[in-house]
């Protein structure tokens, strides 16, 4: 399952597309895709594939995540390049929509319909054989049975998110595109949506989830595509990417009962680039090998009999994946 870490600039793997394991078949394939709005470039030079399972589409706001999802949905046409789903062109072939479900980022829904009517309507338009059964099933999956009889206009944000997901999966598509599905949900709803996303992925569907909340992404997707400034910045296994990140300089904050002595011992090591003491029993160390450094500190502290109170990365917050890739 572990996929090699690939960068956009690196050689494409055997299937010809970054983002796919060797020999893996592309369910979604983008080749040389770019999109301009007038003079503004939304995305450019995108070539990647997405296979089965959950893939997280990551990137800061405005990086082009929604543009990509909308192009895969056929809602907008790329300015150049091709977008194919299940090896069929979207936008020219409306029958492809039997295999695609999208829960987009738009907030408004048909306010006068009830949640059940809305999901059922989507089933009917998809020509699902048993629309009532399919709708009930989808509603049950997102845990909305109790509120399905109420009008959409009165839904909270979390409820809207879930009913949108129900409408997107009512026809049991092979490709499910979810744009920021966790936005606005409370911790309880978030946990149940995350469990749902994992389950759909395990069933072999291609689930693409865009998000900017990294700690959550970690919980449902191992495979990620990072979009920065409209370009593919990284693709592959989340942890591999995070480990790659360890190869750059890190800052670590340490609090102990004898910061001077510990700092003096650490600074003698070649992996320590600098140490800055701050008066309150803490120091911040900069290292070029954070893994070895993280082992070094307890070892040295143990040897010297220094008590460690705290040790935490200054920039480990997973947000640093972005800052790292953005800063490049």
């Amino acid at each position: 399952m572990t996929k090699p870490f690939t960068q956009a600039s690196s050689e494409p793997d055997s299937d010809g597309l970054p983002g796919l394991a060797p020999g893996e078949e592309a369910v979604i394939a983008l080749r040389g895709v770019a999109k301009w709005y007038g003079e503004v470039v939304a995305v450019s030079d995108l070539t990647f594939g997405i296979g089965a399972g959950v893939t997280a589409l990551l990137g800061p706001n405005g990086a082009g995540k929604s543009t990509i999802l909308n192009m895969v949905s056929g809602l907008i046409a790329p300015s150049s390049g091709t977008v194919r789903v299940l090896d069929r062109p979207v936008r020219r072939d409306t029958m492809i929509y039997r295999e695609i479900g999208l829960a987009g980022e738009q907030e408004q829904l048909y306010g006068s319909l009830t949640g059940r009517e809305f999901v059922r309507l989507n089933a009917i338009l998809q020509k699902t054989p048993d629309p009532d059964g399919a709708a009930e099933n989808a509603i049950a999956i997102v845990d909305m049975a109790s509120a399905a009889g109420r009008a959409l206009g009165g839904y909270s944000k979390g409820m809207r998110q879930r009913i949108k997901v129900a409408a997107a999966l009512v026809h049991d598509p092979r490709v499910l595109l979810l744009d920021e599905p966790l936005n606005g949900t409370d911790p309880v709803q978030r946990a149940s949506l995350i469990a749902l996303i994992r389950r759909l992925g395990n069933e072999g569907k291609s689930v693409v989830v865009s998000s900017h909340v990294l700690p959550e992404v970690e919980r449902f997707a191992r495979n990620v595509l990072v979009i920065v400034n409209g370009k593919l910045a990284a693709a592959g296994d989340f942890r591999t990417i995070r480990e790659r990140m360890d190869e750059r300089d890190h800052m670590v904050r340490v609090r102990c009962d004898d910061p001077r002595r510990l700092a003096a011992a650490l600074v003698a090591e070649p992996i320590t680039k600098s140490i800055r003491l701050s008066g309150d029993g803490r120091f911040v160390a900069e290292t070029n090998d954070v893994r070895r450094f993280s082992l070094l500190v307890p070892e040295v502290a143990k040897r010297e009999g220094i008590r460690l109170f705290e040790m935490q990365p200054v920039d480990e917050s997973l947000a640093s994946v972005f800052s790292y890739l953005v800063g490049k």
Partner: protein
Amino acid sequence: MHAEPNQPLSIETSALVKRYGDVLALDHVDLAVPRAAVGLLGPNGAGKSTLLKILLGLSRSNGGTARVLGRDAVVHGRELRMRVGYMPETDALPDNATAADFVSHMAEMSGLPRRAARQRAADVLYHVGLDEERYRLVKGFSTGMKQRVKLAQAIVHDPELVFLDEPTNGLDPLGREEMLELIDRIHRQLGILVVLSSHILDDVERVCDYVVVLDGGRVVASQPLHVPDDDSADLHVRVDGNPDPFLDTLREVGLEARPAGIEYSSDEFVIARRGDQTLDAIRDAAAATGSPLRLLRPATRSLEDLYVDSVGVGANGARGNGRGAAT
């Protein structure tokens, strides 16, 4: 900014009730919130927004009293509204005005003379990080910029207390970071009291020193949050690679580790602290098993535990799910 004996509490309610038809949105809410940065937590529909609306005088309660900064929200509504600011959750921004126009207009609505309003609008927009953009139409702004404009209009008239409803909603990690930093600065440097309503426990943990948790229209927790450098709290740890040898070594000295819960990445653990020996045991276990110790920090009384304990069954279920998802 911090509690002085002669200053009124920031929020005080007694037996506050609000009904929407059959639904009891607030069920006899009693609160006495000190002058602090207050986090307002709770699941969707817990009554957070309803409470904010009543405190702001936007909505009338069906019973009970609410006092903000020592003033009754109904009787002294106008006087009170001169001293508070409000950043709503919705995209409450005009389609067709520039940021500077809109914010200075809002300043005038708070009673500032015209020139002072324009001047302060420009200053505040600069301080929330909108400088050159302030003469552009708000319509074309990104989510993060819109949130900043909303924050700017909430503090442009230099309020004593500012209500922030989901200020980090829709922001990406960098944007969220910057927004929380801004809020933190508003509170700590400028001494403006903050009431922050959020879904995200982490947001509250970052900027607040007091927390109120609502569930089903009732107050289930209301207490101070941080005690700086609390050396008696549980510990959060994370090691690189396979954590099992590290955890086994700890277990040998009688220390049990459990996975950290719902808002944290899956590979963090919580270890109950029994004195300072626990610190040493963790240090030694890492050194002995060669496990790089990437994180060691006191969990104080973690907000998450508080939330899970007070919100009860639902969140416990979620916690189970979360753990299931982590495996």
